[in-house]
Every structure is written in C-alpha cells, then in structure tokens.
C-alpha cells in the first residue's frame, strides 16, 4: 500500500528523519511510535505533502494498482487523487462552521464537480441537488457512527474535546481515503473515549481502509496495531508486530534511556 524508502528530511543542519524505510500494508493498522522529537510528525508531513522530503521516495499503490509518488505531488492532490487523508496533532476543525458543514467541506471535490464548478449550483439547476443530497447522506452516516448526529448543526468549535477528535476523523473519512493518517488520535482522551476511538479505528479498518497512526498511548498502539515502526532520533530502530517490538531491547533502551537496558519495560 504505502512504501517509504530512504526518506530523509533536513531542516537546516538538523536531520529530523534519517534514511527511513518502512511499509504500511493494505488493510492493516500501522503505528509509528517513538520518543518525543523522534521525527514522527515530520514523517507524516512528508507523506501528506506538507513537507517536501530532502531525499527518498514515498509511493502509494492503491487497490487498483495505480501508483502515486507522494513525495512529488502537491499537498492537495495527495488528498484528492491519491486519497490519503490525515488528522492533526492539534485539532484543526473549521471551528466557526457547523459539524455538518465540516463534513460537507471534506467532500468538496466531488460536490464542486457536481455543481458545475458552482455555476449550476448558483442557478439552482442540474444534478447538483442530487449530489448535495448524497453528500448530506454520507455526512449523516458518519455523524451516526461517531455519535454526533444530535449536534450536527452546532458550531464545531463548541463540541467537547473528545467529540472534536472524532469529528476530525469523520471529516477525513469523508474524502473516501484509501489511507488514513492519524496524528496522535488518542491524545487528551479519557479511558472511555479511548475505547470508543479504538472501536472506531477497528471499524474503519474493517471497511477496508488502511491506517497509519502516530500515537503515544501504548495501550492504544498495542491493542489495535497490526504492525509497529519505532523511530528514535529520526532513525528506525525496530519494525514488527506489537509482540516483537515490545520485546526488542533497542526499543526498551530508547524509551527508558541508555544504561537502563536491564530493566523491564513497563
């Protein structure tokens, strides 16, 4: 599905990501973990086109076998063509717009084509009405899934924190992604919300979407990931199933610091 090879990202003299290679396989949940400053978000920003990598390639192959070189595509194309969606570490909703509007904006590219690039929609003719009804239906579907149907017409910024996290995921799903990248989705959630999040992510995987996530909450990572990539100082130090990673001495060292290698990981 997603293959990252030799990815390097430099900021001035600093190497945030150093010759990183890994794969995210179709239909799996791949987690990227590592201590603070390990370069996880930088990797995400390279994959989703916010940064242009200094070196290396990022290739996405979808179910039909079409290949997209993400490292060479402009940011918005990565979402619209290659169908890679993402969420942000610090939630980025359209706070002043309603929950429903947030989900409709996510379907922008479909809807704007149906609106005859706005002309037909302004005049109120053509197939736009049907397209909008379809868009609303999809929005309603996601609102049901994240349990926000009652708050559809409230401003997104007025939602509680956990609901905002779920809404951001739903909004990303509204672009019909093949790969969903989540930047710390469990940050700031209480245990009950974390469980709901796990269920949501597993359901999204069951629908056939591939997931890539950065997460600090090891509970979430270990429970739902199929495959874990561990970064430290921009380099990959481990790569494998949750069980393999948990037992890897290099990982334990990275998390607990050098010299503590004998101790058990918590």
């Amino acid at each position, binding site marked *: 599905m997603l293959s990252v090879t030799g990815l390097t990202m430099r900021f001035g003299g600093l190497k945030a990501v150093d010759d990183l290679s890994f794969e995210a396989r179709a239909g799996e949940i791949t987690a990227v973990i590592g201590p603070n400053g390990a370069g996880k978000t930088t990797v995400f920003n390279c994959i989703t086109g916010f940064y242009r990598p200094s070196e290396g390639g990022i290739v996405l192959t979808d179910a039909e076998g079409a290949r997209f070189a993400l490292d060479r595509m402009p940011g*918005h194309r990565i979402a619209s063509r290659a169908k890679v969606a993402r969420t942000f570490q610090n939630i980025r909703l*359209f706070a002043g*717009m*309603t929950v429903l509007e947030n989900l409709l904006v996510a*379907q*922008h590219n479909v809807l704007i084509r149906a609106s005859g690039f706005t002309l037909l929609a302004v005049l109120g003719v053509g197939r736009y009405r049907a397209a909008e009804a379809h868009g609303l239906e999809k929005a309603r579907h996601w609102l049901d899934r994240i349990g926000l149907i009652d708050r559809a017409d409230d401003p997104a910024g007025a939602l509680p924190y956990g609901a905002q996290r779920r809404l951001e995921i739903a909004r990303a799903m509204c672009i019909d992604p093949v790969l969903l990248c989540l930047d710390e989705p469990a940050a700031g959630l209480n245990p009950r919300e974390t469980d709901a999040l796990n269920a949501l992510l597993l359901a999204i995987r069951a629908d056939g979407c591939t997931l890539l996530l950065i997460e600090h909450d090891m509970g979430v990572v270990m429970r739902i990931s199929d495959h874990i990539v561990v970064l430290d100082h921009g380099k990959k130090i481990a790569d494998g199933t949750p069980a393999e990673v948990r037992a890897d001495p290099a990982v334990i060292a990275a998390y607990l610091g050098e010299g503590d290698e004998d101790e058990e990981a918590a």
Partner: protein
Amino acid sequence: MKSAVRDAGLSALVALGLFAPLIGLVTENGDHGLELRGRPLAAAAVVVLVFLGRLLMLTRAAHIAPPVVSGPSPAMVRAGRALAPALLVFALVLPFGGSRYYVDLATLVLTYIMLGWGLNVVVGLAGLLDLGYVAFYAVGAYSYALLAVNFGLGFWSCLPLAGILAAFWGVLLGFPVLRLRGDYLAIVTLAFGEIIRIVLNNWVSLTNGPNGITGIPRPTLFGLRFSMDGGEGTFAGFFNMEPETIQRVIFLYYVILGLALLTNWFTLRLRRTPLGRAWEALREDETACRSLGINVTNTKLTAFAIGAMFGGFAGAFFATRQAFISPESFTFIESATVLAIVVLGGLGSQLGVALAAIVMVGGLELLRAFLSFLADQMGSPIFAGIANELPLYRMLIFGLALVVVMVLRPRGMVSTRTPTVLLVARGQG
C-alpha cells in the same frame, strides 16, 4: 476609586505628551514660510476628555459586570429578520418620497453597499485581507469609460465586460500572490492599488492622466435615452413627459439598486455552494483545507476574481453616474472606506455591511447636512464650522472605528453566522 483617578491621570499625562505638540501647536503656511501658532485650549480640551473618558471607563467597569458575550436575544433576532425586508421596501419606494438630494445620497450609499458586498466575498467569506480593492473599482470604471468614449459602446454591453476585465485583473494579481501569508497579501494588494492609480495618472495617451475622462455616456432604459431635448428616442419623449433631470437620477438609483441586489443574491447563493463553503473553510483553517484535497490557490483565486468582478461592476456604474472619472477617485482612502464598512458590518454579514454603509456614509452626510441646516437657522458659526469640518473627520472616525471594533467586538456589529445548510430543519422558522 483612588486608583482609577491615578490611572486616568496617567492616561491624561500620556495624552498630554501625544497631543500637546500636535494639537497645541499648529504649523501654518504664513507669508514668511512656516509659522507656529499656539492652540492650548484645544489640546487641553482633548487631554481633559481623555482623563474623563478613562475615568468613566474604569469606574463603570468596576460597577457594572463586563457584558456577557452571548448570542443575540430572540427579540433581536426577530427584529433583525424584519429589518432586511423593511430596508428593501424602504429602498424601493425612496425615490418617490425624497428630493433629489436624498436620491443622490442613497445612490452613493448603495454604491458603497455594493462595493462592501463585493469585498465581503474576499475578506468576510474567504478571509483574505484585500487593501487594494479600489484597483478593481478603477479597472471597471476605466474599462467602461474607455470603451464608451473610444468605441461608442453602451453601458449595458460594457457592464459585463467591465466586470470580466476586473476579474481578469484579479486573477492576474491573485495568481502569484495568493500563496503568500495573510499579512503579505494585504500589503501586496495595497501596493497593487497604488500601482494602478499611478499608471492611470501617468499613462496620459490612454487615460488622459490627472485630467480624467469626460463625457462618459449615461445608461439607457431599453434604448431610451435620458436627455433633456425630450425628442424621439428619449425617456421623456416616449412617455410623453416633461424631460427632467430627476428622471435620470431616479433611473440611476434603480440601476445601482438592481446591481446591489444582484450582488447580494449572487453572494447569498454562492455561500450555499461547495465553493462558498470552501471559502469559509479557508478562512477558518487553510492547512486543514489542504489536507482535505481542496486546491487552496484556486479557491482563493475564485474569491478574489468574484470580488473583483463586483468591484468592476460598481466601477462601471460609478463612471456612468459621474460622467467623469479621474485617478483621484481611486485612492487608498476608497479601499479603506470599503474595508471599514465590511469590518464594521461584521465580516461575512450581508445585512451588517448594508447597515454599516448606511450609517458611515449616509449617516455622516446627513449629520453634516443637519448641522449646516442648524447653522443657517440659528446663524451659529460654531455649527457651521463643525459642518464644514465634518468631512475632514470622516476618515479619522473610520480609522478609530476599525480599531475600536476590533478591540471590543472583533466580529463586527452583526456577528451571528447563519449555517449554510442544516440537517434538521429548524421548527418555528
């Protein structure tokens, strides 16, 4: 109380430093070069005002709890809903009740309302700060004037052209600069506005430079001219009426009313399309838009172009109404005025923009007229003086209003946002 007095005293001290030299001493162009004249009373008055104002602010703030920021009350919402239709009816019947003075004033106000609505697309919806909006107004005005004077084209055939040309310039400028961050965009549009004005001033062979273009033809009503001869093919001749200037004035009023309403209708429709929603999303968070596959540059460009198009329409109307244009009408002050109207009205609110234009353009002029009327009646030189000086203070008031609104009510006078689509139709309606 004691600390309030001390605080107000400090403010007064600052005011003394600020205003003693610049208000208390005037440089006047005398016979032997510049002379300095003292004006201590005016400076003292301002300092006292600052002291009292600050004292009032502090003591009131101590007694009364700060206003709770909340949504408007239901009564206000109902009043607001009734206000727009009421204004519309008033606008429709106004020419029949008012004298020429009022129709002219209303035409001016409507021109600013239209410009405000046009700029509202760019600033209010898309969140792009455009400080050179007057450039598109100028492009529209000069497009019509040049096409009409050089090629004899009529107003109605030029109107769309003026809009398209303005939009074209919007795209031309927008394409390279819309990638810039917000404050850079603001200063680039400011520079662009100045460039257009300087070029209009200096390209004498095309624009006749500072002398401007005269004899710009007036619009016709389905081919009927509004000329004073009253003969064949004129409005008065066709309807067997006595030809009067007021007929043309009223006709022009309805033209701008129609154009403004068209702008309003189009904008309101646009808001409910995917494009309009993308604009608002852009205003809220550009990065998130990009992550959802929205082509940010193109979306900004459409906002810029559509805003420019309305500016172009308004410009063509301005040219045909004045029958004369010169670069002097297209200075930064115009851009600032329109921006002030949009900001005061509440970024994004159509009704707010209309109200702001009525108050800031119409209200000030009426106040001036009222003061000079009082001066005539009472023979009072003070009122006459204030009335004469009032236009000078207009921009000062606008500037202060921008700051005060941002500090106190950043979302403007009318700050409620209507969602573009609802999942549940709201019951009572």
